[in-house]
């Protein structure tokens, strides 16, 4: 009988707890940029479009265009333990959420020549869970 009780308790506990992992990826991974591929004063808009493809966002400034490339990843893990029948009381809730992105901006002058490049790779810092 005690075995049955233990089993029932275990079943109730398992019914009440759960782990949810949500992964959201938006965009495409940015291509690797080699040294000398984007040189301010030399590289043209045509070169950038050829090598990196179209930007995810085009911003127009008085001094020239800005290409924005972005790849965003978000991982969310949730563990919940709650009493399922009478009170629905949450005994434990643990959530971990991480959002990291790779972002690159390429600035052009009015003649379409690269005037500056900014790049930050963040997705490598994302924990798997």
């Amino acid at each position, binding site marked *: 009988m005690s075995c049955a009780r233990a089993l*029932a308790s275990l079943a109730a506990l398992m019914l009440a*707890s759960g782990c949810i992992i949500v992964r959201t990826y938006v965009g495409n991974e940015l291509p690797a940029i080699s040294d000398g591929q984007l040189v301010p004063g030399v590289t043209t808009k045509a070169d950038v479009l050829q090598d990196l493809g179209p930007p995810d966002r085009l911003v127009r400034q008085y001094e020239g265009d800005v290409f924005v490339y972005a790849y965003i990843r978000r991982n969310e893990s949730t563990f919940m333990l709650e009493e399922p029948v009478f009170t629905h009381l949450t005994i434990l809730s643990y959530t971990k959420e991480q959002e990291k992105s790779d972002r690159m901006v390429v600035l052009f002058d009015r003649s379409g020549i690269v005037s500056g490049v900014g790049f930050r790779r963040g997705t490598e810092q994302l924990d798997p869970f």
Partner: protein
Amino acid sequence: MIVRLGLALLLSLMCASGCFIGRYEEGLPVAADKIPQIVPGETTKAEILDWFGAPSGLADAHLLESFLVDRELMPGPVVDLPFADVLVYRLTQGRLTAMLFVLYNTIDFHVASDTLIVFFDANDRVSYFGYRKGTDELR
């Protein structure tokens, strides 16, 4: 008897799993077969409009993009306002895969786009263009 019943209950709980796959698409496919015909300095805006149709932002709804932009998961539409010297064609696809095993649940949501951007000079001829087929990553 009770033990068997409990075991059966536990087993059925463990097996109460499901798999959900959803796909969402917005925009029209970019006519990739026409892209090799684009020649900077020669191809006109009229030809681009003839080959690829009305550009994104003028003819398509962008529910998924708006949803993601509101949650800062996308930098925004490629261009906010239609510029006279830039046309953008974009197909955005989203794929949702969920595996629900009662105790352990995973949900993956991946969004990618095919994008063609074409710049024109003052004479309405193509000056630059770029194309990326990003939706291949969803397959």
